[in-house]
């Protein structure tokens, strides 16, 4: 009987961590559905980006209020996790506050955790107020209804509950320590929970129930949260690190040159090429490479990781010139729709063993009107706190529309024709190019 709670805890730990690992594997498989792209160059610049942007949150503070509150929650999240280590050991071995042998250091740590937990609680409440009372517009765009909206709130409620449980647990422990009950040795310092303690009943039995209850709920909550991540926009707490590491290091204005196009253009411009030669036989059943992207498998794994990393903060959309002037385009929605499609393809693979054609694509949810409204100004890319690049997806979708579907807006087709015929996007004669010097 004595070991029942230890066994129960071990089981919880195995299921909680095991399910999480299973989902991480699925996540990696889904990201690898993307095309290969080499981002192994310049490791030192990449580490630097990761340390500054993901760990140091340098881009978060472009908006100081949200940035500083976020740093508090983030620091709290990471540092309070040291406490989780103690909880796991206590849970497995039936000890209580196993690290308390550290004496003064332990008191300092528990005291710091309490202050952090309190600050996290306050920050999360302010986040909730910004979202629900002040109603900051980027949280109320048209893509932020149903699940995306609830997802954001769930996370806030989760944090509120977890932090409250942690403080209540400590408050009950503090009272028990004062009463000198059983194994509740005097350990830790309680700068916040000592003010909650007087509100709790002073009966030792009830206090133990509260302390144990809060302890279990807290750790169960953490396991639920861990496994909620995969289904949530909250994956950024993990993916922000690889995402910033592998982010584009080239100037933002540079769009990649498609090698498949280069090969064909070189052949067309080569005076020695035989114009009547048959195209080389494709090897095996290899499909000719598609130009641009119509589905997630045409995008690179970086672009897919971008989609999973997006936490739907909407900073990109709030600075998008098209979105600000009432156009349909929202860079955030592009990322969200991309992720939804990866998930759909992933579920298809889970069900059928391999991907079974479902006659859907990114164009099932992303409209041409959105894609053509982009000015390629890079404001969204610049703004993203974790270096997501929505523009690269928009360009790849445009490439598909133009080169595979010939469905550019009519005015752009005229521009293409002018460039082909006159070497300028307007209808002027190339021989008049130098006329300006005589005018």
């Amino acid at each position, binding site marked *: 009987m004595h070991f029942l709670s230890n066994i129960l805890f071990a089981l919880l730990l195995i299921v909680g961590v095991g399910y999480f690992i299973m989902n991480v594997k699925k996540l990696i498989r889904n990201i690898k559905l993307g095309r290969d792209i080499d981002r192994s160059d310049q490791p030192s610049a990449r580490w630097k980006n990761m340390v500054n942007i993901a760990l140091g949150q340098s881009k978060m503070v472009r908006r100081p209020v949200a940035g500083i509150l976020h740093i508090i929650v983030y620091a709290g999240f990471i540092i309070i996790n040291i406490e989780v280590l103690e909880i796991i050991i206590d849970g497995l071995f039936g000890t209580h506050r196993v690290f308390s042998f550290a004496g003064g250091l332990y008191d300092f740590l528990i005291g710091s955790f309490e202050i952090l937990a309190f600050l996290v609680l306050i920050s999360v409440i302010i986040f909730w107020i910004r979202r629900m009372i002040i109603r900051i517009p980027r949280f109320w765009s048209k893509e932020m209804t149903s699940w995306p909206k609830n997802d954001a709130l769930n996370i806030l409620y989760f944090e509120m509950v977890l932090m409250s449980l942690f403080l209540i647990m400590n408050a009950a422990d503090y009272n028990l320590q004062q009463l000198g009950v059983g194994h509740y040795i005097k350990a830790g310092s309680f700068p916040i929970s000592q003010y909650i303690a007087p509100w709790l009943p002073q009966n030792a039995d009830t206090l133990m129930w509260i302390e144990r209850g809060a302890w279990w709920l807290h750790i169960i909550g953490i396991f639920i949260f861990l496994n909620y991540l995969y289904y949530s926009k909250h994956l950024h707490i993990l993916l922000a690190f690889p995402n910033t590491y592998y982010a584009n290091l080239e100037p933002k204005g540079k769009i990649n040159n498609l090698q498949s196009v280069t090969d064909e253009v070189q052949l067309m411009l080569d005076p020695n090429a035989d114009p009547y030669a048959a195209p080389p036989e494709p090897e095996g059943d290899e499909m000719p490479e598609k130009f641009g992207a119509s589905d997630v498998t045409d995008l690179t794994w970086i672009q897919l990781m971008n989609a999973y990393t997006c936490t739907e903060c909407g900073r990109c959309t709030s600075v998008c010139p098209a979105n600000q002037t009432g156009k349909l385009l929202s860079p955030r929605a592009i990322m969200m729709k991309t992720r939804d499609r990866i998930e759909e393809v992933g579920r298809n693979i889970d069900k059928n063993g391999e991907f079974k054609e479902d006659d859907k694509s990114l164009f099932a949810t992303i409209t041409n009107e959105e894609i053509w*409204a982009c000015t390629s100004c890079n404001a969204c890319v610049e703004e993203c706190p974790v270096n997501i690049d929505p523009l690269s997806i928009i360009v790849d979708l445009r490439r598909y529309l*133009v080169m595979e579907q010939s469905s550019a807006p009519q005015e752009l087709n005229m521009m293409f024709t002018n460039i082909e015929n006159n070497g300028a996007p307007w209808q002027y004669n190339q021989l008049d190019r130098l006329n*300006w010097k005589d005018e």
Partner: protein
Amino acid sequence: MSIKVPTMAEMMAEGKTPEVLFWVGCAGSYDDRAKKITRAFVKLLQKADVSFAVLGTEESCSGDPAKRAGNEFLFQMQAMTNIEIMNAYEVKKIVTACPHCFNTLKNEYPGLGGNYQVMHHTEFLKSLLDEGRLTIEGGKFVGTKITFHDPCYLGRANNIYEAPRDLIKKLEVELVEMKRCKSNALCCGAGGAQMFKDAEKGDKEIFVERTDDALETNPDIIATGCPFCNTMLTDGIKNVEKESEIKVLDIAEILASADEL
């Protein structure tokens, strides 16, 4: 009034190699407003005694609007044709007054065999200033209020924010920043091939939104470094009927006109 502008072909025939190729670009060649920028920049080059040449009728669209509109084929056709011509002239250094051409030539041509040192005209003028080859005096602009609109393809795309501002500051004017400037600057609405089509349905034109930003600073002059931004903001100023009070000018035009060139 005709100005003397040598072409690469003429230079080569004389056995000379210019210090720099001036890439004029389509807007600079054909657009009536942008041609004034081209001529102003040439006057500055001549004043600073820079040995330069243009490709003239051998120049063709850099391919930027095609690429941004998704037509990679057309872009690469343009790029490779241009590269072949420039490599034949052994071009080493290029300057251009168009940030779109600048970005494409600088970032996207190297992968296709076109490796050049490419400078935006504000960077180039700044380097002339630093080398003491060009002097800048405010002239009639001293004391005026100027706000600078960052072109996306110069600013965010290539992190060039200071060269144009350094030039403006030399004029002894009051440089006022818009609330959205530098990396936070709002696009004029013309990039990504939008210049060549109507905007999608919305509740406002982007150039009107950006012009509002500029108007908030209550400027005498809105300075730009891009022919497309110039067009959009000029339209924005006309839209509020302020064209007699507020001028939209390229930095090259301001410098040339300060010097009464």
